């Protein structure tokens, strides 16, 4: 599998290089088919569609997750739902166009924007410096950070005074693992491959606490009595924001203004109450929601 990944990476790199060199002369043609995103033709050399072009076509292509409940998922009737989708519906409504949802994966979100196959990505996209080089992020609409959950009777509220004999549970390959290795080098980490194994380990008392994305630990504590989120946000606070193709200034400006306007009506609080409250409970609303694009 490692080899496959490497070959895949080389292949992708190749296409991207080839693509970039050939890109200057490329004009985006459009073909008309039934199941395809609305007309992606654009004036000039750009792959993206400007605000006016989207309005004209009557349809906005929005990349969302289709299997990440409760942020973007498909319900039993085949309709897209979730915190991201609730916002996406509002975007399309206020733009006066129909929302055309495209199911994206974590690994192909940037590619979708760069090839103009979607106009906006609203797939729980965390803002990072590396991604800023590739796409343009609008104002944030949600916070994410790490969280620590532990048994209620021996709640861990700080990682600073944990001893070597108090192992902390993490899932390998997550941001939690990287963060702990960098910032708490003296901690004993107990690493598990899957969510299910880490969960079992905490329940069996193999570790004193479990560090993971705060949304995950909050949901876990809500579902399992006897566990409490001792530290709801740990380390650097990241944000989730919509992203558009790099350089698509007209659309970016409109989305930013829209987020600011929606902030006046506490739109994202309403969004939270409609879509996230079942999973995370009302206690963490202020922790997770970013209103009007303003982080605290």
């Amino acid at each position, binding site marked *: 599998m490692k080899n*496959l990944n490497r*070959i*895949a990476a080389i*292949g*992708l790199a190749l*296409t*991207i290089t*080839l*693509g*970039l060199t*050939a*890109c200057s002369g*490329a*004009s*985006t*043609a*459009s*073909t008309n*088919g039934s*199941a*395809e*995103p609305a007309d*992606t033709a654009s004036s000039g050399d750009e*792959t993206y569609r400007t605000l006016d072009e989207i309005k004209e076509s009557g349809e906005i292509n929005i990349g969302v997750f*289709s*299997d*990440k*409940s409760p942020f973007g*998922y*498909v*319900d*039993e*009737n*085949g309709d897209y*739902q979730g915190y991201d989708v609730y916002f996406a519906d509002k975007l399309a409504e206020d733009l006066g166009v129909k929302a055309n949802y*495209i*199911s*994206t*994966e974590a*690994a*192909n979100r940037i*590619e*979708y924007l*760069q*090839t*103009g*196959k979607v106009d906006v990505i609203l797939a729980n996209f965390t803002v990072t410096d590396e991604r800023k080089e590739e796409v343009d992020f609008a104002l944030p609409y949600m916070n994410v950070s790490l969280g620590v959950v532990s048994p209620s009777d021996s709640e861990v509220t700080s990682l600073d005074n944990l001893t070597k004999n108090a192992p902390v549970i993490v899932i390998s390959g997550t941001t939690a693992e990287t963060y702990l290795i960098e910032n708490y080098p003296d901690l004993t980490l107990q690493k598990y491959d899957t969510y299910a194994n880490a969960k079992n380990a905490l329940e069996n008392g193999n570790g004193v606490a479990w560090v993971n994305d705060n949304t995950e630990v909050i*949901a876990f504590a809500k*579902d399992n009595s006897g566990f409490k989120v001792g530290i709801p946000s740990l380390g650097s606070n990241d944000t989730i924001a919509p992203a558009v193709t790099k350089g698509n200034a007209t659309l970016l400006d409109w989305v930013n203004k829209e987020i600011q306007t929606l902030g006046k009506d506490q739109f994202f609080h309403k969004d939270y109450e409609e879509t996230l409250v*079942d*999973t995370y409970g009302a206690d963490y609303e202020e922790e997770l929601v970013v209103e009007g694009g303003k982080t605290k």
Partner: protein
Amino acid sequence: MPDLGLEVLLKGSNIMRLLAGLWVALRISLISVAGSIPIGIILGTLMTGRNIVLKAILKIYLEFIRIMPQLVLLFIVFFGSTRMFGWQPTGEVSAVIVFTLWGAAEMSDLVRGALISIPLHQYESSEALGLSKTQTYWYIIIPQTLRRLIPLSINLITRMIKTTSLILMIGVVEIMKVAQQIIEANRRSSPTAAFGVYLVVFLLYFLACWPISLLAKYLERKWR
């Protein structure tokens, strides 16, 4: 009986969504099979010919397709063609293109192998019996080649059906993606549903591939 969480399939239109997903996977693979078999037969026959340049080109084509993982090919056609030429093929069209290219390449090698496996004395004997070149091929070579090809091509066809599970990476919602959507949408209410849903997916893939195997068995017996 462990809890398989099968009740999630009864919610709303979930069963129909899963079947629609299966149809997407089958439609793409069957169109590709229909395209790749004739192309593969032509290319395979050309590979046994005497034109060295043509043979070299076909060999490079075959090796390129065989070495590249299908996922890379899908990305090249779906995203790469937009970057390079500004084309916007849909996910399904990209999938059909990739699967046809792949199927034709593999098929051509199978045809080449089947053709060269017919011993030279078969050609010589039929010539000695006074059969023309066309008659030799029609009555002697092609029937034997076809029989040798059947198990190999069935293997290829079922592989193509199963490999459609990769096309979710280019945004095509097929059976695997629908299964993941159903599991995730019910992650909290039925956390054990993954096993049951994937079991049903397995059964559906099986039901799709089994008739093809049966047909192959029948043909092999009939053409003995």
